[in-house]
């Protein structure tokens, strides 16, 4: 390339100058704005709940997090570090179903909720969606979830997955208890809170614990000859005299009872 050098500007110098021109960093507002526009960003609200104030986040796909935090900043930091994407306060009202559930855990609006469980493993998602099937007022053992999702041996892993539930209260992991009737752990404030939540839902934890402590796992409906988990609607309404206690599946089957189709106490 021929170049004139009058005034000191030749083609090479021009190219050098161009290459040396400073590049710019995108402003930090760019990523959140884009994610928001394509529906992949999360917004959050602070709401009162049965366990006190909680932060609830949602993307267009569904509810992505429910957690307690000392401040909005702490919540935002935690969300970003767990999810790797930004979250910002919402200017509008939370979805009606979330509002009604936070006021009243027994609300039927749970069925209307959708969840954004991106980032969880397939197993963790299966555990949580199964917990979602447990009706209000009932509890199931960890082993029930393990069996229902096709991993009967993975009882401990079910406990771990429930402990990591990103959307407690809304996916009711508090309805999963130990096979011996003891209440078990709870990520949103320990077993005391879990027990209180169950009481709110009209489960009597004391009765489950007493039955469990005496080795009773199932109750049979004497008239209809099926057996259930103790909190199942199939036996709960019966008067005590018509409930037949069983220590295990074998005992129930030997007595001529078959498993309840609603609570599915056996495979």
């Amino acid at each position, binding site marked *: 390339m021929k170049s*004139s050098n009058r*005034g*000191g*500007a030749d083609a090479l110098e021009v190219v050098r100058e*161009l290459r040396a021109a400073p590049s710019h960093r*995108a402003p930090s507002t760019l*990523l959140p704005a884009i*994610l928001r526009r*394509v529906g992949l960003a999360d917004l959050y609200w602070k709401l009162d709940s049965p366990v006190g104030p909680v932060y609830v986040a949602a993307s267009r796909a569904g509810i992505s997090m429910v957690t307690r935090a000392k401040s909005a900043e702490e919540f935002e930091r935690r969300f970003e570090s767990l999810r790797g994407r930004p979250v910002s306060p919402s200017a509008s009202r939370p979805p009606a179903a979330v509002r009604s559930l936070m006021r009243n855990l027994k609300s039927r609006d749970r069925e209307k909720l959708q969840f954004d469980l991106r980032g969880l493993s397939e197993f963790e998602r299966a555990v949580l969606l199964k917990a979602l099937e447990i009706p209000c007022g009932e509890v199931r053992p960890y082993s029930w979830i393990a069996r229902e999702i096709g991993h009967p041996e993975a009882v401990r892993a079910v406990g771990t997955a429930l402990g990591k539930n990103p959307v407690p209260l809304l996916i009711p992991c508090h309805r999963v208890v130990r096979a011996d009737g003891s209440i078990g752990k709870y990520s949103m404030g320990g077993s005391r809170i879990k027990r209180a939540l169950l009481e709110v839902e009209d489960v009597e934890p004391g009765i489950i614990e007493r039955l469990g402590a005496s080795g009773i796992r199932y109750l049979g409906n004497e008239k209809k000859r099926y057996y259930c988990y103790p909190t199942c609607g199939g036996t709960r309404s019966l008067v005590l005299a018509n409930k037949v206690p069983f220590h295990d599946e074998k005992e129930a089957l030997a007595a001529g009872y078959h498993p309840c189709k609603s609570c599915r106490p056996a495979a």
Partner: protein
Amino acid sequence: MPHEDALESALARDLDGSFERLVREYEDRLYSFALRLSGNRADAEEIAQDAFVRAYRAMKTYPPERVRSLSLKAWLYRITLNVARNRMRGRRHEHVSLDERDADGRARYDPEDDAASRPDSILEEGRRRASIASLVAGLPPRYRSALILRYMEGLRLEEVARVLEQPLGTVKSNVHRAVNALREALLASRRVHSRSEVIS
């Protein structure tokens, strides 16, 4: 680049799950590019935003094999260029002139933007570079895009051709002419500069 291949297949597999990674990987490049095309930060941010949103919506409609075989870098630059062109077309000026003012009376292209945060010792250097950028902004659009992509964004000539959807020969000659035009502009601005120094 093997890294890019991985991102393309990740997008093909799970667009919603990998889109954020795409934005993080390309936001600085596309924003820089948009800033060089538009000459001001507010426009650049909107252009980059629109470009990523368009890319997302397009990929949403593509079958996975099409997403996997995208030349991601060139494709994203092309979208950004189209968004910028469309915006500029809607305006009176095809490009930002050096003394154009925005609503607040600030110059649309502000060389101080680049230099403001620098210590005094290199402020002059910053000014000089900014003046190159403003001269680039004054070039005819067909030269300007080719020049920015080739030298400021550091794309290979083949990639520039893909972004501009032009034959390689056309790109080569436009880049060549753009360098010459810029050299002329630089000479002219130095002449003006030294004359004003003599006068003062």
